[in-house]
């Protein structure tokens, strides 16, 4: 069999498997909670049947939260894939690089000003987190940039770690000034607890994912070129600097918008693309869809576990993701020669 056809087939198989897996975890997620809904009831309710009670539980409570979680997982998985492609660094992750710390800072500024996150104000939150994340991204890139050698991968991580520590200290300080209720909310957010559970949160996040993910997908050739290194990429005729900038902005926007509704969840951006490229091959057009669906599966699963096993107080999904993603990161760190 011709290699490329083989790869395409493998990629399709992986995508189909991931799609089925995603459906399964979504159904389990919809089923889980204080009142259980059987998959059959879920299906009937989705198609317009079901009792009024079932409709209310599904459409007013479960579905919006699951959709936010799905969108967030997709956003984080794709953002991680883009960051790793652009920086040619398998350890790049929006959380580790400090983008989430920036987003968190933006969110704390938002709650300090507006004092609430309810209602239509929620539409503004992704803007604030995006602004915070962008500022951090610019600072990190400037500091990791070397005039002769461009962005240095390892320095990117070191700088990210330091900036993250500093910005987190500032965020912590600002959050201590909040009243206890707002604080409790902010703390949950920081720990990566999916808080978006109304349709307004879905509407706030949806455009970012629906518009930006396809753009990334259309640019998958460009991402492939980056992996060959700058010389080859510019030799082929792609305008390296401009494309890199665009892709960076896309990654920052995707990850910051996602965490604005799901909370500061790290490590998905690291694990999802890495697993995806192992399963579906290194070409971005094959593994981007896999990365998106793996991100979705991880986040939906983590959220379901967090809110079902640890009753009555839920454990934030971010904690569960960190428990899986952190060791995975260390494994990758030590497998490579640094």
């Amino acid at each position, binding site marked *: 069999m011709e290699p490329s056809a083989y790869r395409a087939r493998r990629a399709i198989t992986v995508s189909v498997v991931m799609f089925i897996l995603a459906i399964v975890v979504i159904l389990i997620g919809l089923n889980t909670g204080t009142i259980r809904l059987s998959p059959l009831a879920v299906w009937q309710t989705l198609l317009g049947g079901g009792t009024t009670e079932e409709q209310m539980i599904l459409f007013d409570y479960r579905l919006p939260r699951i959709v936010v979680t799905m969108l967030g997982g997709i956003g984080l998985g794709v953002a991680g894939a883009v960051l790793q492609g652009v920086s040619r660094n398998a350890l790049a992750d929006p959380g580790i690089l400090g983008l989430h710390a920036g987003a968190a800072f933006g969110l704390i500024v938002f709650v300090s000003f507006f004092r609430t996150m309810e209602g239509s104000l929620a539409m503004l939150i992704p803007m604030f987190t995006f602004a915070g994340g962008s500022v951090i991204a610019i600072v990190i890139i400037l500091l990791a940039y*070397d005039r002769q050698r461009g962005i240095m991968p390892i*320095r990117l991580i070191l700088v990210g*770690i330091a900036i993250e*520590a500093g910005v987190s*200290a500032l965020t912590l300080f600002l959050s201590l*000034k909040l009243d206890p209720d707002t604080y409790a909310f902010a*703390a949950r957010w920081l720990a990566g607890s999916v808080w978006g559970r109304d349709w307004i949160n879905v509407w706030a996040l949806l455009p970012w994912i629906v518009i930006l993910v396809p753009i990334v997908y259309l640019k998958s050739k460009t991402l492939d070129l980056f992996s060959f290194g700058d010389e080859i990429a510019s030799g082929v005729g792609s305008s390296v600097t401009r494309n890199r900038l665009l892709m960076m902005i896309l990654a920052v926007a995707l990850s910051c918008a996602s965490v604005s509704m799901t909370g500061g969840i790290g490590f998905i951006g690291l694990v999802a693309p890495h697993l995806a490229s192992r399963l579906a091959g290194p070409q971005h057009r094959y593994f981007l869809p896999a990365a998106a669906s793996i991100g979705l599966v991880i986040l939906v699963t983590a959220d379901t576990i967090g809110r079902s096993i*640890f009753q009555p107080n839920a454990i934030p999904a971010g904690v569960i993701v960190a428990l899986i993603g952190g060791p995975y990161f260390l494994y990758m*760190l030590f497998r490579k*020669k640094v």
Partner: protein
Amino acid sequence: MKWNKGYTISLSLSAGCAWLVFSLFMAVSSGAKEMDLYTVWTAVFDYNASLTPHQIIHELRLPRVLGAALTGMAFAVAGAIMQGVTRNPMADTGLLGVNAGAAFVVALCFALLPSLSYSHVMLLSFIGAALSTLFIMLLGSAAPGGLTSLRLTIAGAVVAAILHSLSTGIAIYFDLSQDLAFWYAGGVAGIKWVHLKLLAPVILAGLAGAMLLGRPITFLSLGEEAATGLGIKTARIRILGLLIAVVLAGASVSAAGSIAFVGLVIPHIARRIVGVDYRFVLPFSALLGGSLLVWADFAARMVNPPREFAIGAMVAMVGVPFFLYLARKERREL
């Protein structure tokens, strides 16, 4: 030349002592109620319990300021030791996950055993610090290519991230997040004489132990071969050094929360001034670190009274730019 260097060192050490004492007096005399230095002096050396200013100084300010000095010393010396024995210029108990291990255990104590006495909390936080250190070191040395300073730094940051995430999870699950956040942000406001009675002997013993290791750490910091050639048992010194660093960091974290960057910045400044000999770097780091936290706490109280700024954020404002400067300077390594 030889004489000149000794002169610089002794001058720096005495200046450091004087600066620390001056800092202590300044910090004790200023606050919501200004005291003149005469009152401070008499309150310390001629305490009269019937005078209100004396009481304020004795019961509120003195333990707090002494606590800041002690924890600052401990963080700085722990950082200096770690930089010496791991030969990693970016080592710091905060960045390498030692503080996070201690903090995680303290969070567990807050949640599960809220009535635990301070001495037990302190003991358990040592264990937390020791376990996370051990874990990071084992991970680092198990990897192909060994324990490079880069890998150590990144692994430390990730272990710290996992532990921090777990601590927050526990705090949220047990509904004590803001209490814990206040403590985690770092602060010496809560330090009382009861704490100092335990904290002071442990930290002073740790500092004394560190000073005894000054000579071998110097050789170790020059390189493995050099140290072995000079008859230093490198493994033993490394373990002893890390043990002392863990004790110092564990005690400080249990009292003042996780304060990063002190242990990163201070040893660099100390080496810049007194040279690379750890017999002098360690005591000088202690003096500078103690004064740094005394001033940081002082500033934290004075920026926006009566609210207090988090001391950890205060130190980070100095520490982050410094770390970035180091990361850029190490360009050949990275």
